[in-house]
């Protein structure tokens, strides 16, 4: 991946009616990467996208594109194009004219318009749809038109605002693969906004997890999944068990009344921490003195695996396993050091509001 930075957001603050939507966001977007802004609704991800597109002016902070300050540049002069939520196709124009819109504005010769639109239609698998009215297209087709319309301008960067939100699951999965393929073929930057963690993990080179107007964590999908920086990220990216613990020393942690060897260091001695354990990382066996012992409360078949809730001294562990154990039986849980992820209690940026979110999420699950 090219390491050149195409868009740089510096200390961005956005306020809507006294409410801070973005609280000093800093983000470097690298050229030609597929980066996803991920977070729950109201976290500021769409606002961040709209700042890059030019539709929202930050109250504070600087936006750079290719090293040039672009705070005051209106959307129509920016080298980015957007695929809008619900597509925002022009209802008075047919498919061909929707896609040709950007070229017509530049007074492109008719012949070139024709060939480029046809090329785009082919790319998004809509050959022969040119004369169709956009209202008669299915959601998936409308979405392809929106993508073609944005890409025909050869933007340096494509912004996508929850483009798959309105599609059914099957179509969504297909489009995820297609979008990723398109991004690699065109070799341009995609900035993708979604609240769907699976979508983010599947497609992205990097994921930016946002919550409450701040960035919690930036990293490659594997890293975000395996090493969540705080309880919010851990909860938001996949399912997890979060339990309080004490870090006795480097590589030595205590939780659930047991001492474990882990791979984390750099914490203060006796520091209170949160431990994240993914449900699929927990192994079930006969209870011994070494294992965390509990009673199986419920067993639910989920297709690929069984989901079991095991009650151990009041804490309810969520476990995913391909083998089921009868409800009511007593089992032992074992963990290997690489399954144990230690997180600092307070978010690394020191912003406290993350922990309130933690509490909310905790209430739901436990």
């Amino acid at each position: 991946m090219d390491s050149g930075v195409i868009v740089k957001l510096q200390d961005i603050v956005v306020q809507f009616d006294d409410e801070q939507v973005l609280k000093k966001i800093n983000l470097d977007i690298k050229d030609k990467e597929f980066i996803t802004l991920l977070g729950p609704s109201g976290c500021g991800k769409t606002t961040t996208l709209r700042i890059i597109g030019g539709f929202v002016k930050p109250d504070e902070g600087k936006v750079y594109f290719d090293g040039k300050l672009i705070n005051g540049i209106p959307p129509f002069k920016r080298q980015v194009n957007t695929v809008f939520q619900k597509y925002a196709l022009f209802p008075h124009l047919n498919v061909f004219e929707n896609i040709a819109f950007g070229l017509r504005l530049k007074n492109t010769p008719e012949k070139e318009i024709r060939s480029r639109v046809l090329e785009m239609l082919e790319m998004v698998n809509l050959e022969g749809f040119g004369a169709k009215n956009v209202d008669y297209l299915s959601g998936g087709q409308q979405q392809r038109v929106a993508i073609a319309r944005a890409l025909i301008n050869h933007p340096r960067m494509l912004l996508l605002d929850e483009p798959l939100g309105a599609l059914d699951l099957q179509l969504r999965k297909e489009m995820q693969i297609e979008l990723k393929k398109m991004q690699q073929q065109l070799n341009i930057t995609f900035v993708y906004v979604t609240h769907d963690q699976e979508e983010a993990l599947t497609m992205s080179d990097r994921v930016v997890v946002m919550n409450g107007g701040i960035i919690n964590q930036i990293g490659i999908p594997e890293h975000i999944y395996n090493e969540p920086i705080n309880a919010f990220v851990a909860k938001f990216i996949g399912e997890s068990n979060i339990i309080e613990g004490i870090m006795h020393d480097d590589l030595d942690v205590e939780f659930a009344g047991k001492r474990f060897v882990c791979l984390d260091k750099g914490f203060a001695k006796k520091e209170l921490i949160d431990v994240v354990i993914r449900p699929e990382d927990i192994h079930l066996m006969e209870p011994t003195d070494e294992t965390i012992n509990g009673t199986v409360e419920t067993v639910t078949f989920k297709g690929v695996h069984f989901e079991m809730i095991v009650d151990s001294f009041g804490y309810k562990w969520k476990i995913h396993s391909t083998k089921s154990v009868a409800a009511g039986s007593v089992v032992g849980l074992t963990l290997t050091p690489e399954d144990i992820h230690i997180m600092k209690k307070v978010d690394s940026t020191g912003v406290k509001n993350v922990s309130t979110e933690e509490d909310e999420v905790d209430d739901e699950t436990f």
Partner: protein
Amino acid sequence: MTKRSKVAAFPYIIWIVLFTIIPLTLVFVFAFTDKSLHFTWDNLTNASKYMPVLIKSIYLAVLATVICLVIAYPLAYIMSRKNGNSQRMMVMLVMLPMWMNFLLRTYAWMTILENNGLINTFLQSIGLSKIQMINTQGAVVLGMVYNYLPFMILPLYSIMTKIDNRIIEAAQDLGAGSLHVLRRIIFPLSFPGITTGITMTFVPAVSTFVISGMLGGSNNFLIGDLIEQQFLGNEYNLNYGAATSLLLMIVVLISMGIFNQFDNAELEETLI
């Protein structure tokens, strides 16, 4: 289901028969008969003698309609892009004059425009000479614009509020500056509002007699005044009045027909 909808439609059918079909038939009958109910073309041939009056009426109505459109279009657009509260406020301000009686509003203009009216008194007081305003074509057009402007603003405004902001943003995103947004997005999407607005302004303007009577004086005798005279004036002649009405109705229908020929796509093509 169909039976129920038939029952539900019944009062409206009666309404239409009583107040649309029967009166229209009567107009037809009167237009083609003389006082003893014998068929005749005389009423129509007589009415067509007043062609200059008809042409003048159409000319003034078109002028007023165009002025209304020019004023209303930007205003409606600005209103539609405001937030909820200021939108409601502005709609109310537009509607406010309509709460007052039509005659009263026109009278008010008389007292403003008269030779000894507000404006001329003011002009004299600062040492300027009087301007003849009342009893001119200008006064008639002013009266039409003032009275019918809300009928232009409201349909335009209501259609413009339906234009999703995201569509405008999408156009900007693809490289359209404000002029292009107006020409390629707002205008074609608001076109049905323009046709409605023009109809709602032009039709009452072309047939008005109150405005021309009060602000235009005897020099600005319009087709509406002609019709009024036949029904209420000294020249009482129902048959002749009906024939003139019929003529006016045909003119309106034809102009609407021509106007509706410009459909969206054509207009757009001529603009691009």
